[in-house]
Each structure stands twice: as structure tokens, then as C-alpha cells.
């Protein structure tokens, strides 16, 4: 199956992240605690990229909040940024939203998904009943109501990322991305929607590069193809990788405490977090040493 002349799509972290330019529209995986491409996000922050529009979610997590807190973001397109039971509104997002430092495209999860579908399908808009009679049109100039045959709809415009970063369990060298197991329920639609809507490269960090033969044997597990691939084990930490590791909730609490301190006028603790976990380590391997092998081991799921 794998012809000898077939081009491999494995890249280095540096190659992957230099594709992001100031002002780009960047799609990120990460539904709540699951599958955020954190190793790539930390490298984007180290490169001090600015004015990004982040498309993440449908409900985002720490990948988006960290980029906001590090000053890389101008606009977000998400239905919310939250850490579930750790804190219902992520701290950097809340602070930036209240100060007006970022613009927010106010949407819910369905509308977020439809906007990506509109881009993937090449449609100028999609009409949707959910969200009519709400404040969404008042808050988004490009999300207005229209009436068709006496029924009101929201006219959802396309959202098209310039580049997308994902974290997945497995990939092969040709850029086929797979989830941990075929039985996995939910939480993969967002990665697929982002990848299909993207006008530029899709880059995936993965826990493990697997032989193409394994991918060919189970085509039903491939959910995105044609991605650029970087092997970065534990690349979602502190988020979980579906089917491979659970989220590091202690780390989320540590981050949240630092973020809440900054929100309440004490920026030092957040800066200290960034120094310890982002700017201090030169690369992902160094970051994993700071986190510690025992901690990472305690988060690993038994592979089915």
C-alpha cells in the first residue's frame, strides 16, 4: 500500500509552529479537558506570535486560555472557555473579556460547528433555527436573523482557519490521524470539523506514530487524513488524550489559582506559571521533566 515514492508528512515542532504568522486564524483541538495540542501551543507562545484569532472548542479549555494569558490572542471563536468543575469560566479568558482586551464571537456549540461546516462546504452561510430570539445578533454583526417563509433563522457565516493544530492518539507518517479505539464515543467531531474547514495546513501532534499497515487494516479509525505529523508523547498535558491519558486536574487547579490571582490584580503568580512551564523549558522534553515522570505515569490509561 505504501508506495516507495510516497511523500512522508512528518515535521519537527519548529517546522510546524513557524507556519503560524501574526494575525492568523488558528484552529485548535481541545473539547474541554480532552486533546488540546498543548506542546504545540507552548511552542507558539515561546515564539511570541501576536494577534491570533483562535477557533477552538466547541467549548474550549486551557489551550485557548493559556494563549490569551500569554498575550497572543486578539479574538476568539468559541462557545466558552472553561475547566468544568475546576472553574466555570477560565481566568485569562474572563479577565480579557471583561477588560475588552479580546473580541469574542459569541456563539454556542452548534453555531460554532455550523460555521466550520459552512467553510468546509463552501457555502456563503447556513440557516439555523437555534439561537433565534437571543442576543447573539446584537453581539455579532455577522450573525444576523433572516426571515424565510415566515420563519426566523440565524444566518451563520463560514469560519475558515488558516492553520489547524490537533493532538491525537496515533498517526502514520502519511498524515492519517486515528483515535485511540474505534469504540471511542464522542469528542472527535470538532477535530474533523476544524480540519475540513481549514484553508491551510493541518498539523497534528500524536502520542505515537504507527505503521501505515495498521492504519490500512482499520480504515474506520482514521478520522482526518493529509495532516502534517509531529510525534509528541504527552503532548496534550495537562489535558487528557482520549483513550490514552486522563486530564491532570491538579495542574489545572495550579494554573487556575495563578490565573485567578492575575485576574484579581496580582499578575506575578501567572507570570511565574508561564516562566516555570512555558518560557523556562526550552522544548517539550524539558517541559515533561518539569512536570515529572511519576505524575505523567499516574495519568496514563490502560490501553484497551
Amino acid at each position, binding site marked *: 500500500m505504501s508506495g516507495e515514492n510516497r511523500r512522508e508528512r512528518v515535521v519537527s515542532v519548529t517546522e510546524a509552529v513557524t507556519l503560524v504568522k501574526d494575525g492568523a486564524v488558528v484552529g485548535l483541538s481541545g473539547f474541554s479537558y480532552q486533546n488540546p495540542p498543548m506542546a504545540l501551543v507552548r511552542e507558539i507562545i515561546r515564539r511570541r506570535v501576536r494577534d491570533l484569532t483562535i477557533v477552538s472548542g466547541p467549548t474550549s479549555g486551557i489551550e485557548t486560555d493559556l494563549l490569551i494569558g500569554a498575550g497572543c490572542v486578539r479574538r476568539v471563536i468559541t462557545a*466558552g472557555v472553561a475547566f468544568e468543575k475546576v472553574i466555570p*469560566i477560565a481566568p485569562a479568558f474572563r479577565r480579557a*473579556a*471583561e477588560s475588552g482586551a479580546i473580541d469574542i464571537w459569541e456563539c454556542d456549540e452548534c453555531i460554532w460547528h455550523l460555521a466550520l461546516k459552512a467553510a468546509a462546504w463552501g457555502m456563503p452561510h447556513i440557516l439555523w*433555527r437555534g*439561537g*433565534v430570539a*437571543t442576543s447573539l445578533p446584537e453581539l455579532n454583526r455577522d450573525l444576523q436573523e433572516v426571515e424565510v417563509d415566515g420563519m426566523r433563522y440565524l444566518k451563520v457565516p463560514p469560519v475558515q482557519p488558516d492553520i489547524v493544530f490537533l493532538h491525537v492518539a496515533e498517526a502514520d507518517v502519511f498524515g492519517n490521524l486515528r483515535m485511540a479505539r474505534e469504540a471511542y464515543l*464522542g469528542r472527535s*467531531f470538532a477535530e474533523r470539523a476544524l480540519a475540513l474547514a481549514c484553508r491551510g495546513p493541518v498539523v497534528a501532534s500524536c502520542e505515537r506514530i504507527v505503521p501505515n499497515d495498521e492504519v490500512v487494516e482499520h480504515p474506520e479509525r482514521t478520522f482526518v487524513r493529509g495532516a502534517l505529523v509531529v510525534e509528541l508523547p504527552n503532548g496534550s498535558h495537562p489535558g487528557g488524550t482520549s483513550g490514552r491519558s486522563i486530564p491532570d486536574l491538579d495542574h489545572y487547579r495550579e494554573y487556575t489559582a495563578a490565573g485567578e490571582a492575575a485576574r484579581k490584580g496580582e499578575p506575578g503568580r501567572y507570570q511565574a506559571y508561564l516562566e516555570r512551564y512555558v518560557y523556562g523549558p526550552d522544548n517539550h522534553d524539558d517541559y515533561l521533566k518539569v512536570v515529572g515522570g511519576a505524575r505523567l505515569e499516574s495519568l496514563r490509561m490502560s490501553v484497551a
Partner: protein
Amino acid sequence: MSAPGDVERLLACVIARELRDTDIVAFGLHAELLLAAALLAQRLHAPNLVLRHGLREERGAEIGPAAWTDNARSRTHELIEYVEEHDVILDVASLSPMRFCDVFLVGGMQIDREGSVNLIGIKGKDGRLAVRGPGSIGTTSIATLARRPILFSPDHTPRRFVERVDYVSVPGWKRRAAAGLEGGPILCVTPLAVMDFADGAMRLRSVHGHTTLDEVRRRTGFPLAPDGPVPVTPPPTKSESDAIEIVDPFGRLAGLGFRADGGDQ
């Protein structure tokens, strides 16, 4: 004052009594109250009620009601119809038999007289957003398209219950009617009272036994009909209490943090 969990167990019963055998009940994160009510209804009078659930257990991570019990066989696989893909919502936005859901539980920073709910934020005196809310998450579309959303609040204060919400995340009765949407919120439950709706406005249905009608009126930012006396919320029956023991074996309802005193004003 009531014992820990009494209020949550009472509200689970109140909601369960509203659920029908033909209902599809959908859940987001932290919807333990509705999950408990739906499981109660299945046991008591609605065996065909369908639970639609978007989450799954990831080795005990705190990701929602699917992690409620350690006993996977009793709950997470046999009774719950998972949302395997978010597309399910997008694929059925109609009221067909394949519809996404009939009932969805909605909370928010503000709830107003017509049952509109605000998750976006609170405006300052200058009219700009001053306090950022969680955002619309999955609630806006699902609750707009569900015909019988149920509202809840973990406290009962004039800050929460306002004449008009600052932003609308989920429309109440008049807004829905103007947009041609069927139905509207059927119930609003709090640690002090149960409200329903008549002619598009919230009214008191019952007041819980541990508080008073005056207290409820004092803590609501708009007048509530009727003017006269209001019945006490019927406490859990014997069969309801027995069923709660089964659906909430670890007493998780007691951990929801509802404020039996109505909360700080």
C-alpha cells in the same frame, strides 16, 4: 432548616413529576439534577423515557454525570443513549420523531419574568459588559429547539431573578412566540420554590416547606402571581424516596451545593 441534600432530592422529584413517558431528555455537563430526575421518572412512571447523553467516563475524571456511579452496568451503558457525535444535534433540529430532545435543563446568571436566561454576562452602569459569564456553551441551540426546557437556579436571589436579563442566551415565552418557536420553559425550580408559567409570565406554583412565601417574594426581582396563598411543595413520597436511594447510591445530589437558605443576596 433541612438536612444536606434534602433540597436537591426534593427538586429531583419535582422535575421527575413533569417528565413524560414519551420524552427525550438531553444533558450537558453538570446536569446531575436532571439526570437524577430522569432516572427517577424512568423508575416511577416513564419507563420509555430516553436519556440522551454527550459524555462518557474517563477513569474517574470529573467530566460529568456519566461518572456519577462506579457501576457502569447499572447506568452508563444500558440506560443512556450516548451522543456519539455532536452532529446529532445538527442533524435533527426539527420536531420529527428523531428530534434531538424535548426537555433540557437550563441555568444562568440571570433569569427573568418571561423565562429568558442569560449566560453571557452582566452589564455595568455604562451598558458595557462588566462581568463575563460562561458563554452559551451548548445551551442556546438545544434549549431554543427543545419544546419544554426546565429552568433551575442553585440559589434564589434578586440578582438572579430579574425583571429583564441583560443578555438573552435562551429565549423565554414572549421572545419564542415572536420568533415562531414552539413551546417554552415549563418550570423553574430553586431551593425555595417551584415556579411555572402562565400567559408568558412566571408565577408561583409552590413554596418549599422550609421557607415562607414572604421570603420567596422578597428574594425575587419582580412580582409573582398569584397574590393569594400558595401550596407547600409536596415532599418526596415513599416510592420517590426509595427510587432516589437506587438512582443516587453515592449521595451525589447532596454535593450539588444548592443553597437551602436561598443564598447570599
